[in-house]
């Protein structure tokens, strides 16, 4: 019984993780990738919290200077707290980048953004791309970077 319930939790945690990873890998939309990342991190955090769970235990808060009952492990909770905040920071930064990419390249499509990035790196380095990677004719040119203040 107990292991089955544990399995459910594990499946939940791993499922979140795998869904998140799959989202990052499969989606082409930058914003969805950030969301997928949040899901994946949630999964990992859930697994971490599970590591500290004890049956029939209470929250690790001392009342009147003593342990009222077996308490769950406080360390994973602290770790998760840290991990969540780290995740928040990373996601916030990712979002700022998404905003900027959207502005500069006018797209949220990873594939397009990457092609344009490679083209830009090549252009900056003054390298002509190999023929097989040349883009078909008639494609729209890169949008000019908006707002010259940052360039």
């Amino acid at each position, binding site marked *: 019984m*107990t*292991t089955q*319930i*544990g*399995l459910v*939790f*594990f*499946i939940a*945690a*791993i*499922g979140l*993780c*795998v869904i998140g*990873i*799959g989202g990052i*890998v*499969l989606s082409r939309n930058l914003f969805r990738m950030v969301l997928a990342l949040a899901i994946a991190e949630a999964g990992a955090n859930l*697994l971490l919290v*599970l*590591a*500290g*769970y*004890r*049956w029939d235990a209470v*929250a*690790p*808060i*001392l*009342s*009147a*200077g003593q*342990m009222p009952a077996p*308490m769950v*492990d*406080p*360390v994973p*909770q*602290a*770790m998760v*707290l*840290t991990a969540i*905040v*780290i995740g*928040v*920071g*990373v996601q*916030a*930064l990712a*979002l*700022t*980048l998404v*905003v*900027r990419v959207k*502005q500069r390249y*006018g797209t949220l499509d990873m594939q397009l953004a990457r092609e344009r990035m490679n083209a830009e790196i090549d252009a900056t380095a003054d390298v002509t791309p190999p023929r097989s990677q040349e883009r078909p004719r008639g494609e729209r040119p890169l*949008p000019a970077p*908006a*707002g010259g*203040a*940052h360039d």
Partner: protein
Amino acid sequence: MRNIATLLFLGGLAFLLIVITGSLDFGAPPMRIGTQIQAATAGDVGTANIVTAVVLGYRGLDTLGELSILFAAATAGGLVLGSAAARARPDGGFILRAGADLMFPLLLIAGLYIVIHGHLTPGGGFQGGVILAAAFFLPLLARPGTTPGHRWLMWIEGLSGATFIVIGLLALYRGDAFLTPLFDHGTLGELVSGGSLPLLYLAVGLKVGAELAGLLMRLAQDDEVTS
């Protein structure tokens, strides 16, 4: 095709992870350090909330790192978005404005309460800090035209972070290890207890609040979108 391959790999990964975790002993953790910390918290740190003891005491360095990560993210965000000037944005409307005015003190107090009681009850600097950030961010949504006060936020950010480190360094100066809690533990369960931990949590709260607020403001006010 590639998607199918990816899904296969995802399925494989999920299967493997379930196999791996399936053999773990759920609900009966070894608690090698957990038990000892539970036993020692009262004497070592003197906070009722053991998680707080862990976060700020036993694993204080993690928290410092975490603060730094937030700071790094905020700085990086600043670097990416630049110090943007406010741009004209549709006004929030009466309800939002009135609501924001109403909520601001409440949020401020709630946030501060959660920060200050972090060592006693669930909650703490991070949770409270986020509420503080919301308190400052809400008026901005309501009145887009107001100057955001980046400089203030920056100073709070910098100084609160510095305070955290300086408190840690003070212990060093005293001859203890870095981040050793200062002051007397006080009585367990009282507001003024847990030595310097509440101070640390206050710094954390202020810093988190300032940073999140700054980040949100930058995102909200970014004006590079002209097209």
